[in-house]
């Protein structure tokens, strides 16, 4: 397993903080997920239940079992995992599929892309769960990791994903991806794609 040096931004001060992007999810990462994420997520579930918040309004990933996702995906060549750590804490997890979809944009139709299956950010980086946010930049670094994987696999930076409505502006605005609208084959979630040109623009230093 290899790691790359990346930066996150501390909330409030916006200072850059050294972090690590790992090209797999290790047993240590899973231990951190179980010991630090799961208790906060379980607490959130109890809070939502007692407040009678409709289940369709809950954060979708509250029940994602990263242990099962990691175990199942480890033997499959098509699935690539990433983890982000900072200060010894687990900040984000992602699973990318290299054969799930081909591109739908007319200019790219039928060409291979890296599809982001699952992205989770640590509960303390999510105001809707923790009330505050420690770090920014997990999503951007995960998108960049998927682009880099796409390039390394010969897909020229093409990526795709389905997004919850609350994250749509991040993918279209911050990431500059093309919105292709709700996907009736995928719970009507909005589908987004990034072309090689958009990937170059996204990765270009500011």
């Amino acid at each position, binding site marked *: 397993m290899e790691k790359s040096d990346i930066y996150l931004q501390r909330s409030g001060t916006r200072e850059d903080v050294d972090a690590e992007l790992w090209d797999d999810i290790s047993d240590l990462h899973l231990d951190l997920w179980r010991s630090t994420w799961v208790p906060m997520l379980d607490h959130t579930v109890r809070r939502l239940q007692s407040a009678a918040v409709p289940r369709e309004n809950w954060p979708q990933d509250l029940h994602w079992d990263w242990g099962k996702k990691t175990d199942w995906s480890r*033997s*499959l*060549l*098509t699935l690539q995992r990433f983890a982000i750590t900072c200060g010894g804490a687990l900040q984000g997890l992602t699973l990318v599929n*290299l*054969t799930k979809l*081909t591109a739908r944009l007319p200019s790219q139709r*039928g*060409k*291979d892309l890296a599809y982001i299956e699952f992205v989770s950010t640590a509960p303390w980086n999510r105001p809707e769960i923790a009330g505050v946010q420690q770090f920014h930049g997990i999503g951007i670094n995960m998108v960049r990791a998927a682009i880099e994987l796409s390039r390394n*696999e*010969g*897909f*020229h930076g093409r990526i795709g994903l389905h997004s919850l409505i609350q994250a749509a502006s991040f993918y279209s605005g911050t990431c500059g991806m093309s919105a292709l609208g709700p996907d009736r084959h995928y719970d009507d979630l909005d589908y987004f794609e990034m072309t090689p040109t958009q990937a170059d623009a996204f990765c270009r230093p500011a």
Partner: protein
Amino acid sequence: MTLNLTDAEMAALEDLAAKKDLNKTVVIRQALRLYQMVDQRLREGKKVFIEDEMTKAKSELMLL
């Protein structure tokens, strides 16, 4: 390893590489990923179908 292909197989490989904007090595790697994924699904007791978008008719993809 050396991969020996017939003319027809090589033509199919080159056609896919051109259509998909991939080099031939990547096409082979994608084929292996897909084959492994389908095999895994079948081992788990799942079925893999091809569905006609218009008629919704399904045909089962068989792997022996």
